[in-house]
């Protein structure tokens, strides 16, 4: 009988309605069928039958009542959907019966998926993700190797360029559609004020095409125009996250005034969400202004008495440049076209290079991940990835073993169900439903875990770029889990249906079929493999933790723990004398503060990574640069610097207040400089620097750390800040008697009294700055420890399961042995020996693997050999402890078998 589309539509509607009225419709059907039987019975009685006979005849004529009802119900709703619901319910009931199994499986999956997603997401952000701008593939950072002679730079010298390069590159637009320039307004953060409260924000001055060329839309207001660069307009664009954090996304801030280092700027717009600027080190920019010439807003916040700006000092390379290549132009074509222009523009102002100087090499670095900083994260992230994969393998093996063990126990259940007429299809559907539930729960929990783990990773690694679990990663994880669900669903069905039903039913639980024996063997192989992988993980975490301990135990050469450091940078561009007066007053007040033992300051705060690097010149003799071999670091400091930081003075004196501009220039040098370049000669009285900057050596101090914890020993010198041409922005250091941080409110009060417009710059205990220099190794070590522990736990669970299963299967054998006079200690030893055998094989396989893996860890070691015997010992000890711990309960159970009961159950 043909039915039209309309008919189908009406059927569908009626089926849907019936889904919600099932109970009512069931009752109706029952009554209708009863009525049918009643009517038929009544007619049969009329024909002369007895009641019982009449009823039987009626039922016979009807056919199967139950079958009819089932047919009817299938027609009524959506049978597939209803089957699915039924299967899921049944699966839930089954899992509820073994909560331990369900819990272990879900948790294992969640940890595996969560850790994997988090690490992948961070890796993606750091190494692969492009800037959230229009067509990021055509965007490149201009970097170079080997700066020309007679040029100097601020910032990462590889990224720095001069103004002449910027101008010349803009003249030739054959391969490049845009040149973008940006310069930070300070080494760290810049003082800004909106309303009364002074604070700090990361600020960049940028070219007028910054937002239009990058293709970053505005969330509110307008972007800069080219004219803003030409006129050095007083307008600012703020980032979306700064807008959110500081202004609570108030659209009213557009048009308001914000003071940058005391200079008023009008907020012109708010950049789109997820745009954190273009800094290649992962730090987020809060505020952008057009390129400036004002003396109050020098590039990098470095004041200069000579009136130097980026515009009039082409040999001062302080700008960072990006290019957008025209569509179709490759990086290689771009570099080969731009390279001659770049070199020509450099030599135009710096003069031709000296013969023998290494040539300037231009490179185009894709604006992807963290630019060249990605290299710093490359090795650690790959090592973490490797560890996650190993943990994941161990976890998956555990799940497979758990399932296999569970299914071998359920062989009888399957056999009974098959014997009772269950279809293989329905068995399969139910198994699939079970693994679907496990995997779904695992993925859901794993996703929550990933969100939290990603957040923690971002926090620990101090990356300011947005780090959220990646949806592409999630999709991948989901795909894999779906496959796993399917496989896990299929696997037990094969054993269940391949073993003859009769055989399974006939065998008792203690004399299992051959499937049980081969399961036992393969699980022992899997356990051994897990042990080997666990061995590798414990070895790697041993190395990484020991590296972290080495960082922690590094002698900084000063008592950084009891020193409070903070920036205090006067606004505007005060004259030399005003600035000296400001700092003298500030230090005076701070010295009188209770709890302050002594006070000093430095242009470059130790442990922040910044240093002033120049050619070494002793008594007029210039040492060749030789790739930095003869580099001299320096810093400008105030009186009591060494005393305050606790750096012992070996000879001569500290910097004094009397080392003023009118006095002759003095310098203090470190031990390394004295040893390497003076030998047995006493350096005191000799001179550092060229004729213009000549300074007499007045003191020698013991070596200490300057920019980071893991730096090598190198020549270092300190000058009196008053003897510079212009006074830099200084960071104050206070030696305190109590917890340095507790002094902060009092310090803040003093600074506010002197100038209410100055924010306290990044206050911290000096040692925490040094700690931040090994943030990545610390993060990796913590994670490695976590992964190592997780692996050990998983292996212990798996091993425990296997041993317990074996003891269970051997209950009868154990009973017989006991009955024949075996000692209980012997039985305990039997189980323990089993476990120790597995671990011995595991270690035998694991140690060579660990030795192979150490290759990848070499670059991350600090003062530690990758063949550290302690780490090998820790790995061996760790897995041995795991194997003994996992054997304790099964061994105890084997020893406490009651021989009579064991024999009776057979």
């Amino acid at each position: 009988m043909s039915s039209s589309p309309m008919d189908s539509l009406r059927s569908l509607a009626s089926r849907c309605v019936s889904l919600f009225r099932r109970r009512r419709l069931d009752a109706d059907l029952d009554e209708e069928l009863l009525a049918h039987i009643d009517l038929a019975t009544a007619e049969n009685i009329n024909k002369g039958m007895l009641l019982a006979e009449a009823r039987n005849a009626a039922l016979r004529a009807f056919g199967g009542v139950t079958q009819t009802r089932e047919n009817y119900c299938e027609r009524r709703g959506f049978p597939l959907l209803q089957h699915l619901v039924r299967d899921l319910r049944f699966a839930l009931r089954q899992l509820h019966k073994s909560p331990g199994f369900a819990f272990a499986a879900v948790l294992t999956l969640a940890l595996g998926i969560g850790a994997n997603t988090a690490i992948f997401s961070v890796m993606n952000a750091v190494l692969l993700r492009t800037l959230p701008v229009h067509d990021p593939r055509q965007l490149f950072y201009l970097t170079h190797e080997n700066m020309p002679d007679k040029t100097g730079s601020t910032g990462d010298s590889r990224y720095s360029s001069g103004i002449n390069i910027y101008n010349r590159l803009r003249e030739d637009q054959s391969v490049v559609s845009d040149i973008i320039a940006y310069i930070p307004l300070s080494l760290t953060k810049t003082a800004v004020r909106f309303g009364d409260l002074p604070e700090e924000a990361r600020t960049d001055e940028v070219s007028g095409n910054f937002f239009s060329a990058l293709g970053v839309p505005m969330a509110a207001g307008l972007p800069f125009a080219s004219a803003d660069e030409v006129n050095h307009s007083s307008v600012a664009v703020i980032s979306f996250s700064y807008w959110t954090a500081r202004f609570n996304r108030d659209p009213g801030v557009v048009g308001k005034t914000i003071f940058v280092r005391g200079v008023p700027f009008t907020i012109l717009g708010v950049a789109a969400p997820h745009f954190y600027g273009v800094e290649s080190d992962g730090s987020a920019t809060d505020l952008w202004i057009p390129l400036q010439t004002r003396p109050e807003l020098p590039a990098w916040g470095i004041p200069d008495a000579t009136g130097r700006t980026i515009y009039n000092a082409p040999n001062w390379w302080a700008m960072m440049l990006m290019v957008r290549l025209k569509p179709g132009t490759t990086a290689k074509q771009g570099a080969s076209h731009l390279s001659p222009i770049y070199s020509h523009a450099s030599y135009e102002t710096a003069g031709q290079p000296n013969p023998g100087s290494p040539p300037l090499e231009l490179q185009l670095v894709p604006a992807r991940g963290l630019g060249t900083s990605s290299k710093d994260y490359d090795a650690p992230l790959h090592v973490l990835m490797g560890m996650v994969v190993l943990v994941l393998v161990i976890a998956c093996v555990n799940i497979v073993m758990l399932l296999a063990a569970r299914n071998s126990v359920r062989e009888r259940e399957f056999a009974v169900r098959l014997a009772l007429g269950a279809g293989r299809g329905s068995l399969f559907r139910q198994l699939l439903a079970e693994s679907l539930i496990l995997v779904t729960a695992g993925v859901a929990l794993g996703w929550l875990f990933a969100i939290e783990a990603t957040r923690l990773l971002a926090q620990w690694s101090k990356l300011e770029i947005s780090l959220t679990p990646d949806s592409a990663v999630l999709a991948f994880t989901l795909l894999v889990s779906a496959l796993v669900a399917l496989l896990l669903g299929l696997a037990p069905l094969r054993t269940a249906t391949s073993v003859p039903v009769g055989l399974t039913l006939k065998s008792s639980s203690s004399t299992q079929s051959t499937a049980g024996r081969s399961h036992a063997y393969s699980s022992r192989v899997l356990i051994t493999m897990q042990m080997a992988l666990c061995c590798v993980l414990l070895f790697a975490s041993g190395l990484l933790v020991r590296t972290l301990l080495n960082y922690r135990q590094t002698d900084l050469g000063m008592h950084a723990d009891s020193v409070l450091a903070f920036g205090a940078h006067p606004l505007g561009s005060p004259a030399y004398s005003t600035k000296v007066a400001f700092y003298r007053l500030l230090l005076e007040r701070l010295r009188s503060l209770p709890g302050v033992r002594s006070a000093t300051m430095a242009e470059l705060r130790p442990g922040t990574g910044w240093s002033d690097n120049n050619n070494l010149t002793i008594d007029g003799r210039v040492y060749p640069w030789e790739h930095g071999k003869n580099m001299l670091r320096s810093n400008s400091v105030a009186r009591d610097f060494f005393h305050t930081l606790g750096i012992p003075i070996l000879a001569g004196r500290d910097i004094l207040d009397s080392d003023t501009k009118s006095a002759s220039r003095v310098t203090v040098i470190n031990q390394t400089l004295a040893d390497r370049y003076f030998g047995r000669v006493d350096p005191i009285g000799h001179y550092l620097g060229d004729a213009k900057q000549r300074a007499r050596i007045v003191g020698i101090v013991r070596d200490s750390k300057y920019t980071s914890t893991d730096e090598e020993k190198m020549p270092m010198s300190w000058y009196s800040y008053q003897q510079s041409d212009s006074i830099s922005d200084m960071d104050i250091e206070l030696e305190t008697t109590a917890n340095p941080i507790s002094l902060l409110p009092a310090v803040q009060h003093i600074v506010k009294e002197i100038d209410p417009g100055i924010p306290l710059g990044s206050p911290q205990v000096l040692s925490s700055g040094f700690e931040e220099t090994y943030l990545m190794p610390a993060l990796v070590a913590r994670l490695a420890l976590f992964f190592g522990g997780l692996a050990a736990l998983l292996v212990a669970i798996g091993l425990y399961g296997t041993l317990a299963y074996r003891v269970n299967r051997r209950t009868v054998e154990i009973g017989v042995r006991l009955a024949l006079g075996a000692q209980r200690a012997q039985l305990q030893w039997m189980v323990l020996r089993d476990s120790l055998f597995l671990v011995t094989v595991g270690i035998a396989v694991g140690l060579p693997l660990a030795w192979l893996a150490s290759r990848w860890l070499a670059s991350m070691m600090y003062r530690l050999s990758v063949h550290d015997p302690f780490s090998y010992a820790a790995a061996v000890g760790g897995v041995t402890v795991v194997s003994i711990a996992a054997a304790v309960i099964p061994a105890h159970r084997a020893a406490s078998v009651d021989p009579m009961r064991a024999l009776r159950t057979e």
Partner: protein
Amino acid sequence: MGENKSDVLQGTLDLMVLKTLEAMGPLHGYGVARRIEQVSGDALSLNQGTIYPALLRLEQRGWVKSEWGTSETNRRAKFYSLSRIGRKKIEEETENWERIAATMARFLAQAN
């Protein structure tokens, strides 16, 4: 019961039910089943139960409607009757069936 056979039966059963309702007016399920048995002269062995899925199918398509009523023996029962769509469909389906029957007959004749 194989599926192919029941499909053919289903189609014919649907038309039988519709024709019965057209001839008899509102009728409960048992009445429809008995009437079909009588008309077919017991040549058709019908499980009376199969009438119900057929009635449901017709009702879902909107060709038949149902309401609760009281039988001749004062038993509460569900009465089925033709809907407006159902009346129109009978003509279509009858023509359709006759065409198939005629075609079948021609084939059978040819085989002889």
